[in-house]
């Protein structure tokens, strides 16, 4: 709630005060009439009553005039509610891409918790989640319904914490018996890239890719091919890998994939990881889609101007009453 033209109201207020000051009624002039023993009049009860009535009317008139003036000034000052809208955020899609292979099962619950934190920080972006092992399953498509997103994430987290006895169990659905192998990283990434919709629109697209990159089996796409597809689709891949002393090669590979697509590689586990991911994604995306936020002004003149109209009517009525 701000006053857009507060300076105009200020100038008018000063002008009004100056006008009242200059045109105030002069003191008794030399042409006035001296009389003696005015106590004959001023001690009369009816005179006192009349004076009290006049005082009340005058005070009421003054009050109404001041109120009317103030509300007119408030109306002139253009009270408005200003909203800053950043439409670019609405053009961002973030796909959470989670590896649920056996080697990752120990981390997935924590990862989902981290995802939930991540979702809390987003504002306006569309979020989707795809889980993969031997095959990929779309947990939920891209959406800005964050309540639903959190429900899904919480249920998935429960599923992983209880090994499938509660919540949603993804490990079964992502490893159908007719597909050999597991942890087909490249196929998973391609599926994630493929799960972006509205491909004809120019949108900022990024993937948070949580995997340890422990390939077991024979994928259709290896990781480099998947990275090529991501680059072709203009999708940035931010990879998030669990800390492991043994996986330096895999981590490097992930890092190279992220770098090629314009993303970054993060290690899970440090407390500030989530912050850094959000910051990184948002700043990166801001760079990629230069934000042109604009301001919407919602004028709210109804109350002050309505008061002024009623006040003006009141001034006329009281002035007429005072005159008569």
């Amino acid at each position, binding site marked *: 709630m701000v006053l857009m033209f507060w300076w105009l109201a200020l100038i008018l207020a000063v002008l009004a005060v100056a006008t009242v000051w200059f045109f105030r009624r002069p003191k*008794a*002039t030399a*042409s006035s009439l*001296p*009389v*003696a023993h*005015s106590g*004959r009049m001023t001690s*009369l009860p009816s005179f006192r009553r009349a004076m009290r009535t006049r005082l009340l009317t005058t005070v009421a008139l003054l009050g109404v005039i001041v109120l009317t003036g103030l509300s007119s000034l408030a109306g002139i000052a253009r009270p408005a509610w200003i909203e800053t809208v950043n439409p670019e955020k609405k053009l961002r899609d973030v796909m959470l891409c989670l590896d649920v292979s056996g080697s990752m099962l120990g981390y997935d619950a924590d990862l989902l918790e981290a995802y939930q934190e991540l979702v809390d920080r987003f504002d306006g972006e569309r979020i989707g989640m795809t889980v993969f092992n031997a095959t990929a399953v779309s947990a939920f498509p891209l959406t800005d319904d964050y309540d639903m997103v959190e429900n899904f994430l919480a249920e998935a987290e429960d599923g992983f914490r209880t090994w499938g006895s509660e919540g949603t169990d993804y490990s079964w659905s992502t490893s159908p018996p007719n597909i050999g192998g597991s942890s087909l990283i490249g196929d998973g990434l391609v599926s994630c890239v493929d799960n972006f919709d509205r491909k004809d629109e120019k949108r900022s697209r990024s993937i948070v890719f949580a995997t340890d990159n422990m390939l077991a089996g024979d994928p259709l796409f290896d990781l480099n091919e998947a990275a090529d597809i991501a680059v072709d689709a203009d999708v940035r891949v931010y990879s998030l890998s669990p800390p492991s002393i043994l996986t330096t090669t895999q981590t490097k590979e992930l890092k190279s994939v992220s770098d090629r697509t314009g993303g970054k590689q993060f290690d899970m586990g440090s407390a500030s990881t989530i912050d850094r991911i959000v910051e990184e994604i948002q700043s990166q995306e801001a760079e990629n889609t230069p934000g042109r936020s604009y301001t919407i002004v919602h004028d709210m003149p109804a109350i002050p101007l309505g008061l002024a109209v009623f006040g003006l009517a009141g001034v006329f009525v009281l002035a007429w009453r005072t005159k008569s």
Partner: protein
Amino acid sequence: MTALLNRIKARMTIHAHRRTRRLLDGDYSSVFHGHSLDFDDLRDYIPGDEIRDIDWKATARHTEPLVKRYVAHRRHILGLVVDTSRNFDAVTSAGADKRHLAILMAGMIGYLAVRHGDDVMLIHGSAERTTASPRKGSEAHLEHLLQQILAEAGTDSPGSINTQLQWISSHINHRMLLVVISDQAPLGPDEEATIRRLRAQHEVLWITVTDADLAGLPAASAPFDVARPDHGLPSAVMTKPLVRQEFALAEAARRQHRIDLLAKLGIAHTEIDHPKSALGRLHTLLLRHRRGPR
């Protein structure tokens, strides 16, 4: 220096033809009821003379009525008692200036007295101070007295005729003809006691200069009370019908009270609001005094 008195004399000449002026002289001389027994001479009767002064035997030998004239064994003293406070810097009910009206009334009576060969003195002042002049019988002295009344214009002392009356009762012990020129200040028990005491010793005549009708002032007149010159009076409120009605009732009650009180005390009284009625009022006053209860 004799500007005021000349103007008063002119007014008496212009407005009263010779007959009326002599009438006033007769009025004035008959104010004094005590005659000395030393017969001086006879003169023509003028209307206003006491019937008992007519020398019927001499009149029978003459075509016109004749009046006995006596040698006054002492000069009478006219005491002009004038309220010269700020209350007299106001206007009368007819819109005239109270102070100038007071000067006119004092001047006319004083002139009659001087012509009659009497001494005139002035006791004037406000609630705070009373000033008394010496007694002299010259026109120059009378003019000086009138100038004193005028010189008090612009004072900021409140008025109280009781102060002057009490001063007289405590300072003057010879018999005088007192002409009190006051305004519509209410006469309470204190005033009544003072007047009663004075009445026992002196001949007292009372002239009330009527104050402005506060409920009938024109809207554009911007009235103010001389006691509070910085504050205007709300003429719009004062002329409201209800207020006007109550004011008229209160004024009538006060006026009746004053008239009744002065009548009860046996004091001739008249009200004056404008110079043009001054002569007529003066005649009425002197007549009332002569006819009043002895």
